[in-house]
């Protein structure tokens, strides 16, 4: 598998097929005399910010903290729970129970639910 071509930036879905973000980063473990090993994928706005410039990553983390939204951004999904399919990357988790959807749930509860006709 070509990690960048076949995995990075792909849509991530949970085991039920719900969208939970894109593969914003790939964590590779090195050291201990072993070959580099893929440990996890990263999902989340802080990781996206880091990819632009560390300043944006810090900015996103600080906003998230102030809003009390999430404390695990970026969220890491262990590689052992990942299957790279043709169109998307399938994670063997339940999206709503992970920090990947923390912003989605925060906005749902604090903003969208308060709209008229919600």
């Amino acid at each position: 598998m070509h990690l960048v071509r076949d995995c990075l930036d792909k849509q991530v879905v949970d085991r039920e097929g719900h969208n939970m973000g894109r593969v914003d980063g790939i964590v590779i473990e090195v050291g201990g005399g072993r070959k580099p090993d893929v440990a996890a994928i990263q999902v989340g706005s802080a990781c996206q910010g880091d990819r632009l410039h560390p300043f944006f990553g810090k900015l996103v983390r600080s906003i998230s903290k102030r809003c009390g939204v999430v404390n695990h951004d970026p969220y890491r999904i262990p590689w052992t729970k990942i299957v790279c399919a043709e169109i998307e990357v399938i994670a063997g988790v339940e999206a709503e129970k992970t920090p990947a959807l923390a912003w989605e749930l925060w906005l749902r509860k604090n903003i969208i639910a308060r709209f008229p006709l919600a």
Partner: protein
Amino acid sequence: MKKLLEISLGIVTSVGGFLEIGSIATAAQAGADFGFQLIWAVLLGGLCLIFLVEQAGRLAAVSGHTLTGAIRERFGFNYFIILFLVLNLVTLLVLSAELGGVCVALELSTGIAFQWWAVPVAVLVWLLIWKGTFGFIEKGVSVLGLVTISFIVAAIMMKPNWHSVASGAIPTLPAHDKSHYWFIAVSVLGASISPYLFFFYSSGAIEDHWTEDYIGVNRVIASTGMSFGSLISVAVLILGALVFPPRGLHADHYSQLALLLQDALGHWGFILFVMSLGIACLGAALEITLQVAYFAAQGFGWNWSENQPPKKEARFSLTYTVVILLGALIVLTGIDPLKITIMSMALTAATLPLSVVPFLILMNDRNYLEEYTNGWIANGVVIAIILLAFVLAVVSIPLQIVGGG
């Protein structure tokens, strides 16, 4: 039988949804200032749109990716974010022009200044998206948009010199106002080849669950629907050429546009124009608003579908809510919607390479298209027209600003 019905509906949708404030305003101004001389620009824009829309549908049907999703995947997050910012800034201007178009239609029919309609129109657009489904927005409003065929009827009734009309299909240099001529040509191209159109089309293909079986359906809808749609724009240009010059007008104020159908259809012409403008701009405003939200959701990997309740996709719903609010704020400033329209169409042309170049790379990538990649004709036509639009835009926008038209 089911596919025949889908083709018919698709063509109706393309024709009814083709016209919007951009194509009306630019074609009318082209006709008013240069007679039939800029018909070639409308036809060229229509031809390019046929190719781009067909490709967007083919990409979605074969790969299962929307255009936005594929761009993020193939070109990475940093390119996506540049495209996201540039495209959506221009699209926001186009949205405010469309909202302005609905407001102008209401001003023409009630006499109440268009700015006052900004909030009610924004609420209407938001409500339709909040409560509606994709099918309702895509097909419902477009079917109503068939009223725009009245431009073709009126153009035929005005009995233009068809020989002169036909000669307008061949590009010629203007005898006067060269920079203004090229600026209007760019605006006409920008109105025809708005990126939101083909991005939205690919999202629609995924919403409608297209597969490889739909390649033929897609081809017929794109070619027939967009061809008929372009004919409506040509009709607007013909009417502009016949209606404005005898009155010494340049179609440079939106209130003048109401004259387009009046010579041919009398008082009914006025009513049909107001209906056409209102419905066409409402349809476009709905599509543009949704497209900005689709763009964000598909690029960032959020939940998205117009068919789901807003609570199920909070980020998607909040995005279109904010977008409508921003669009309405621009209308509230009272800037002439026609000026925003013409400028935003030229800016659209200037930013085209940013979205079309990666699109063309994708259309030649076998990882996405398998054996359905582009042929040399499809690539050649699109590259030629986009380069032309870009070069003209880069040259003519500064000239227009400096020369003031």
